[in-house]
């Protein structure tokens, strides 16, 4: 009897277990379908997210390029006054000489006309004296030559400006870095001149034997411009605290030295300006870091210089400096494209 009851109970329990298991199977099928749908949604989400990221990355790169270009333009903008002055000088000088040449030319024409009317020798003699003919004949070629020099200077400046503003190709080209340095110095010339608070800044160049370097010339000149302009700023700031004579005794200079060491072109730009303190040395390459007053500093110069040298050219940009001891910026560029 007992065993039959037992068996019946066991059968009932098995039946219940069977019902529950069947239900669980159904549930697990439902869950599997749900899982599939969720998986598909997650995949699409992931895809969307990746696309979004790629898009933002692209936009970021575009924005960065634009920033570089606009920083360059704003650097140029800052130089406009100086460059205008630089051009005005030879223009004034050519214009002054032009008046002189016109007057001399008119006198010469008069004299020639006297010859054509077959005036007597005494009249010719008298006129020659009156117009200082001997001096005129000597002076006019000189006036013309110096006008040519003035025009050359204007042409140089305009070429440099154009070269500086020109957008680069999207691949590197072999380039003479010394030309870039000279261009940049020419554009900055006005800022190097003496002014009321300090004597002229002496630029000492020591160019070594450099091959043509594969690079983006426009970007590279932008770097040189940023570093040299900073050096001039540092010298201006240093001079502010000192008297004119004290500065004259010490001498303001910027030294530019180039060389090749171990497959690298090295450009050292050294100044004896105010130098950089330890506290800010780590920050000077940061975006928007500046110690200059509003309107003067943007804090972009070195950040962009760093980006151009390191990321675009696979080079290095280092600084050596101590407060009050001037500063040295060292650019290292690989000789071959990597």
């Amino acid at each position, binding site marked *: 009897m007992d065993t039959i009851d037992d068996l019946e109970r066991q059968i009932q329990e098995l039946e219940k277990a069977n019902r529950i298991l069947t239900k669980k199977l159904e549930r697990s099928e439902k869950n599997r379908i749900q899982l599939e749908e969720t998986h598909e*949604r997650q995949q699409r989400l992931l895809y969307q997210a990746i696309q979004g990221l790629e898009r933002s990355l692209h936009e970021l790169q575009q924005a960065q390029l634009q920033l570089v270009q606009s920083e360059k333009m704003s650097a140029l903008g800052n130089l406009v006054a100086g460059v205008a002055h630089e051009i005005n000088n030879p223009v004034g000088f050519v214009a002054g000489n032009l008046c002189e040449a016109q007057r001399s030319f008119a006198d010469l024409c008069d004299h020639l006309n006297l010859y054509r009317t077959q005036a007597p020798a005494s009249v010719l003699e008298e006129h020659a004296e009156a117009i200082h003919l001997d001096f005129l004949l000597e002076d006019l070629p000189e006036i013309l030559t110096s006008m040519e020099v003035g025009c050359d200077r204007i042409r140089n400046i305009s070429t440099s400006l154009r070269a500086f503003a020109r957008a680069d190709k999207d691949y590197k080209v072999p380039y003479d870095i010394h030309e870039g340095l000279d261009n940049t110095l020419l554009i900055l010339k006005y800022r190097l001149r003496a002014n009321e608070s300090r004597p002229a800044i002496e630029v000492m160049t020591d160019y070594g034997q450099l091959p043509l370097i594969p690079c983006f010339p426009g970007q590279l000149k932008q770097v040189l411009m940023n570093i040299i302009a900073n050096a001039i700023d540092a010298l201006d700031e240093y001079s502010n605290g000192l008297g004119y004579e004290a500065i004259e005794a010490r001498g303001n200079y910027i030294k530019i030295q180039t060389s090749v060491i171990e497959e690298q072109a090295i450009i050292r730009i050294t100044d004896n300006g105010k130098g950089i303190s330890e506290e800010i040395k780590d920050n000077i390459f940061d975006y928007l870091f500046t110690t200059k007053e509003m309107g003067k500093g943007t804090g972009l110069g070195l950040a962009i210089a760093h980006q151009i040298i390191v990321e675009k050219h696979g080079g290095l940009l280092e600084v050596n400096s101590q407060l009050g001891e001037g500063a040295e910026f060292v650019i290292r560029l690989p000789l071959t494209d990597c």
Partner: protein
Amino acid sequence: MFQVVVGHSNDPDGVAAAVEILEQCKSALQSKTPQAGILFAAPELDHRIILEQICQTFPGIQLIGGTSDGEISSLLEFQQDSVTLMLFCSDEVEFIATVGRQVSQDPIAIARQTAELAKAKATLPPRLCLTSPESLTTSGVTILEGLKQGLGQEIPIVGGTTGDQWQFRATKQFFGTEVLNDSVPILLLTGNLKFGYGVSNGWHPVGKKGIVTKAKGNVLYEVDGQPILEVYQSYLGDIRPSPEYRLAVYEPEGTHWYMRSSNGHYDHASGSITFFADIPEQATVQIVHASRDEIVNAAQVSVQQALERYTGQEPAAALMFSCTGRLYVLGTRAKEEYVIVKDSLNQSLSLNQQLPCCGFYTYGEIAPLKLQGESQFHNETFVTLLLGCQ
């Protein structure tokens, strides 16, 4: 005295399940007679038979409940496709069940009358109201508004709306032996009742805030003038709306927020998405984010809140209302919710036996956010309610 027992069966056969839960309850009750009960059952079970069996065994019992997306108890812990029953016996607490029918015809008035009727039947002032209203035919927010009007803002209302396992076709409410839809059953508790509640969700807002420029009830049309479907698609791509669509809705004061989640219904033509509950126009909204860990952890936060707020020393039982959206996100980790709650209760109360617990996964949770605050309608939350006499 406040004795609470639970039964829980995962037998898909209605009769067998009813027999099993009643066996479990009777043996725990030791011949005491319960005055009230609350029943949560999977949608596919034969609810009529189960309700009849309970009412036959305990004539006159005040019984409410409804269909659920998942069931929790201290007996079988987390289950789906099961039925769980909690029974209450007390000589210090009075229980009155009433129901409002065809509530969608006039949600506020019908809910108010249902509450007023229960109040009229009670011999003592109301202390707490439990409810398991319909979720599909009308807005849970308006039903709650009616209940608050009938009871007074100061009486806490706790519970959850009934579900149908993401079918969104029909949910059922239980009242005595009746299986209803479009109704609002309530269980009013009066007398020497001690309780504490907690609400937590684990989500946090991320991204851009926006202003709701067009909404009607629980249908959201536009945020910042842009169709909400487009807003989501700009984040999620061209995928069909799903439970991924959740929003934090800020209170007018601007710092507190509650959650709304989509029930998966949307309309391409108008670019609208339907949510589990109302979203007011001009409200500030923001997309929300959470990890599974944060979601599971919210259950513990909710229990801790309930323990801190408990008005007595020794709770005799716990009810839990967890959002079906949590179930969806937690997947296989859904069972951790109860485990973390159990551990938290055991640790804090140092009991020598398991505290009777019962709960279900809802389409919307109801509880006050703050102590003495008005009851509110939530999505994505875990609500804990502790009950007792001591």
